[in-house]
């Protein structure tokens, strides 16, 4: 197992967002988390990336415990993520956003930065090239030099993915990557997620779009009111009567 989370609890001001949650993600898979609004999906992702500290429970990545570490330490351990509410660096160009993502792999002391030592110059060239390649991978090569606040919404969602990929994660958490996208753009995201999985990166996906989830995942976890409702492969989950009831309500006669 690449990622293992056990007995996760998280409450906010008395309201339990997540209760006794277990999660096991196998390497090289695409694992989706679905559920109605308020089910605790984003809370779970925030715990898996260190933004929230679980009230109880533990999180292990490749056997190493990450519970209680700061977000940047989660990132250093190999977990990358995108955000439901875009957190693009709007004060930088698209290319610079992706270059920023390479931070973990660019040793840069303060002295070297101030004096612009030759080794740094060379490293900057490499950084630029790698960032351009990533932009191409997500289909944004024509936006490279553009200020990021000039990109359309769909492009920004892909830019966040490119930035997260720049951290060379073992595990990529995608928080509603298709939210607000039209069917064409959703298909593109679908293909992008497949390409990411082909590169060997494990993906955990939070989504509302059932079609996308069914097509792209190997395993699906259904949450409802902070608890696990069902888990399994997409086929069996979509036929589970409890899932149907929670998502679609009881059929009216």
């Amino acid at each position, binding site marked *: 197992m690449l990622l293992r989370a056990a007995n996760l609890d998280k409450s906010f001001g008395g309201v339990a967002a997540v209760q006794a949650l277990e999660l096991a993600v196998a390497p090289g898979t695409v694992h989706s988390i679905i559920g109605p609004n308020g089910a605790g999906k984003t809370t779970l992702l925030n715990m898996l*990336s*260190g*933004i929230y500290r679980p009230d109880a429970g533990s999180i292990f990545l490749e056997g190493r415990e990450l519970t209680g570490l*700061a*977000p*940047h330490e989660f*990132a*250093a351990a190999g977990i*990358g*993520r995108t*955000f439901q509410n875009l*957190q*693009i*660096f*709007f*004060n*930088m160009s698209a290319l*610079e956003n992706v*270059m*920023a*993502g*390479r*931070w*973990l792999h*660019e040793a*840069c002391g*303060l002295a*070297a*930065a*101030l*004096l*612009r030592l030759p080794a*740094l110059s060379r*490293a*900057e060239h490499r*950084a630029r090239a790698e960032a351009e390649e990533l932009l191409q991978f997500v289909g944004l090569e024509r936006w490279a030099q553009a200020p990021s606040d000039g990109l359309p919404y769909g492009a920004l969602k892909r830019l*966040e993915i490119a*930035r*997260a990929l*720049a*951290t060379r994660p073992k595990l990529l958490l995608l928080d509603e990557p298709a939210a607000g996208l039209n069917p064409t753009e959703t298909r593109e995201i679908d293909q992008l997620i497949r390409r990411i999985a082909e590169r060997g990166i494990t993906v955990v996906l939070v989504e509302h779009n059932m079609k996308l989830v069914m097509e792209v995942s190997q395993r699906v976890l259904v949450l409802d009111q902070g608890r696990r409702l069902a888990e399994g492969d997409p086929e069996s989950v979509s036929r589970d009567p409890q899932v149907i009831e929670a998502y679609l309500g009881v059929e009216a006669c």
Partner: protein
Amino acid sequence: MSRKGFIALALAVALLPLALTNNYTYDVAILVGLNAIVCIGLNLLIGYAGQISLGHAGFFGLGAYGSAILAARYGWPPLAALASATVAVSIIAWIIGKPVLRLKGHYLAMATLGLGIIVSVVLATEDRITGGPDGMAVPPLSIAGFVIQGEKLWYWIVAAVLLGTVWLALNLIDSPRGRAWRALHGSEVAAGAIGIDPARHKLAAFVLSAALAAGAGALTAHYSGFITPSKASFLHSIELVTMVVFGGMASTFGAVVGAAILTTLPQFLTVFKEYEMVLLGAVMMLTMIFMPQGLVPTLEKALAAARRKPR
């Protein structure tokens, strides 16, 4: 852009003495240079790392008094005093920065404001050491026995330090570390998600900007031959922030331009001495309302837009 800008600045600095007619104009130019050095550092903190400091004159004052006291009361060689004062203030900034930078927005503004005021009151009150509100005399700078005096000589020294500072700042901004600071400003949450430790980097920006302020303060003290607590006052802190924001946040050249304009403007306004405050206040308000990005970025955008217009 930045390389061309640097060359332009170097040329401007080299050619400026042709326009400087007397000691007074040299003095203004030197003051501009010294303010610009502080502003570049403050700009790194406010414009790039996205923090705020309403008490930076405190670091300036500490650097100035530190060097002055070591040189005047303890007889240290001025260069050693200057270097030591800068290092000491950097250490102080490192110590207080750790807890203070956990704060955000208005709370951080209040904390830095409070620190600045505490420093200025202490400097004015401990008159046995500092000479009190009337200030103290400072021995001139000397390197290996050669005494540096006179506006012309100081001009070249300040020019060299300024160009050096600009060069360092430009390098920093264009490096992964610079991007990390800008990421912090863009979105602290996302910066954490790509492995950037906000606390460490905010502290680095804070200490660096404090070091620049202290160094410039020490230079000012030795240049003027005199130092008063007003250099550490709240008003001075506000003037510095205004120069940075007016010239352009996240723009090193903006910091220099802002320092240049807002240092020389009051000199022209001495005629209107009574209206000086009214005009300063009006300038601050109008620029921020109509040019919130600051002068240089607004001009850059206007130029870029004009270039893109079809002919």
